[in-house]
């Protein structure tokens, strides 16, 4: 076989036509642009925020599609094609160095986002995201509007819920420590409030709890648990000073519930996606022993002890 100009020309045309058909014509003619149930158009400010998102390369680290194998942010809603009808260019992304953001809207209140843009490590101590303080307040406002719109109608629902609970949380905070603790307490279901931490405090559990505290809590609640972490100036209501919990009947179950579930409306996120049982009990013990100075760990009522607990070194 020889590579004649004739063969090159006709062979080239044939292959090019087939490729054109499969890669361009078929997708173009069969594409469906039907919006999904959650879709809504973006406001002018959200569209501007999206441009800033593109211009700053956010998509190099953050994807915008949730897969059926994901456990992280947004895992409640797997991506559907109808979510992407207004995406020009699409921001699916090809690498995850930060979490997927396709359903980020309403996961956090605005003040958390402000702290996070200006100093990411203030709210996420082990984050490697660069600071975006240089964008200035106008652009950050637009970016935040875009971020809070991710997830469309479901994001709107979550953002409204954040605002609603923020007002109540602020009212409670402004009413003073006694009422604030009472309000926070009343938001925890009764069975959790009555539940002591079932596991004894050991030096090993405190060490593990300390590690979790440093990677997840220290930015807001501070190294001594007084709520004066580096994120404090941005957040209102401000992070809780744990010492005000002393003598106010905070159970291990209450701490566990608040860490697991977060306090929607405040900057306190839920940690149930990133910390599992052992880590939540351990960091709860750490906070109780180190900052509150009171712990109900391993007190009655409790069930049969877990097999690892030893009588000698295990009890406090």
């Amino acid at each position, binding site marked *: 076989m020889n590579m004649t100009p004739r063969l090159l020309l006709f062979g080239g045309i044939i292959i090019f036509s087939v490729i054109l058909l499969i890669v361009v014509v078929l997708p173009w003619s069969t594409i469906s642009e039907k919006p999904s149930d959650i879709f809504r158009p973006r406001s002018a400010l959200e569209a501007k925020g999206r441009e800033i998102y593109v211009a700053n390369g956010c998509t190099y680290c953050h994807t915008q599609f949730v*897969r059926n194998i994901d456990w992280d942010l947004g895992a409640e809603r797997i991506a559907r094609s109808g979510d992407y009808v207004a995406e020009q260019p699409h921001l699916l992304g090809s690498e995850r160095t930060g979490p997927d953001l396709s359903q980020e809207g309403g996961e956090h209140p605005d003040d958390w986002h402000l702290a996070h843009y200006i100093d990411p490590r203030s709210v996420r101590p082990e984050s490697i995201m660069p600071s975006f303080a240089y964008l200035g307040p106008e652009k950050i406002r637009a970016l935040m509007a875009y971020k809070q719109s991710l997830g469309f109608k479901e994001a709107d629902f979550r953002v409204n819920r954040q605002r609603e609970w923020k007002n109540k949380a602020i009212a409670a905070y402004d009413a003073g420590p006694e009422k604030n603790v009472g309000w926070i307490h009343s938001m925890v279901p009764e069975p959790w409030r009555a539940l002591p931490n079932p596991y004894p405090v050991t030096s090993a559990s405190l060490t593990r709890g300390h590690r979790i505290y440093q990677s997840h809590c220290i930015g807001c609640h501070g190294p001594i648990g007084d709520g004066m972490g580096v994120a404090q100036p941005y957040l209102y209501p401000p992070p809780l000073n744990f010492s005000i919990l002393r003598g106010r009947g905070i159970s291990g179950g209450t701490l566990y519930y608040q860490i697991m579930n977060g306090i929607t409306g405040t900057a306190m996120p839920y940690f149930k996606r*990133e910390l599992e049982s052992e880590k939540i009990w351990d960091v709860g013990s750490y906070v109780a022993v180190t900052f509150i100075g009171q712990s109900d760990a391993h007190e009655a009522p409790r069930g049969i002890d877990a097999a690892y607990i030893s009588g000698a070194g295990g009890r406090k």
Partner: protein
Amino acid sequence: MGLAYYVVPIASGAPLFSHALSLVGFWTILMFYPHIGTHHLLQTPAPTWLKMIAITGSIGMLIPVTTVLVNLWLSMKGRLGHLHEEVGAKFIFAGLVWYLLVCLQGPFQSLPSVQRVTHLTNWVVAHSHIAVLGFSGFIGLGGMYFLLPRITGRPLYSRKLADVQYWLLLTGLTGFFAVLTMAGLIQGSGWLSGNVVYRMLPELHVYWVWRAGFGVLISAGAAIGVYNVVRSLYGSKLGEDRP
């Protein structure tokens, strides 16, 4: 690939093993390669038929790759020492080894079951670096070192510097590939077992420090290469007396 086809027979002093085989490679790469882009979107809500075409095309790439490499291997077999005397051909040989690696890895990682772990991780970054810098970069550099003296009539300024560049790039890229592959597997299996992206970050730190280190080797190699080429371009021609 055209550069490799041009340089390998000249540098090894033997004719191309088979012209027909090279044509099989030429036409099949044309057929398969344009379809495979959707393998980056297997886990997105893109149409399933497009994904199937992409996976088929990705696996089909084994045909052109095998024909090209078998063809060139049979052309240079037994003459590797001769081939490596020419520094340009030396780079091209390394580029072909990278090509073998990247093209065995590519079809493998286009499979959905593999992507459950590797997709969106540093594994893919490692893969694209051995494609661009390993395959295209090494062959491009080799072609440049091979052709430059023949076009300009000026000899290479320093063979030794070119060898230093070769080893800096080879060490840098091999290390780069290794640490990113490890980081990718750690990320991917962490995510799959339920750890969130944030929790996996501290696990990756050490690999990214190594990545930066290997990146320095690659950049140093590039700087040495630029110096070598510039000195060659402004050096004296063959047969002229050096001032």
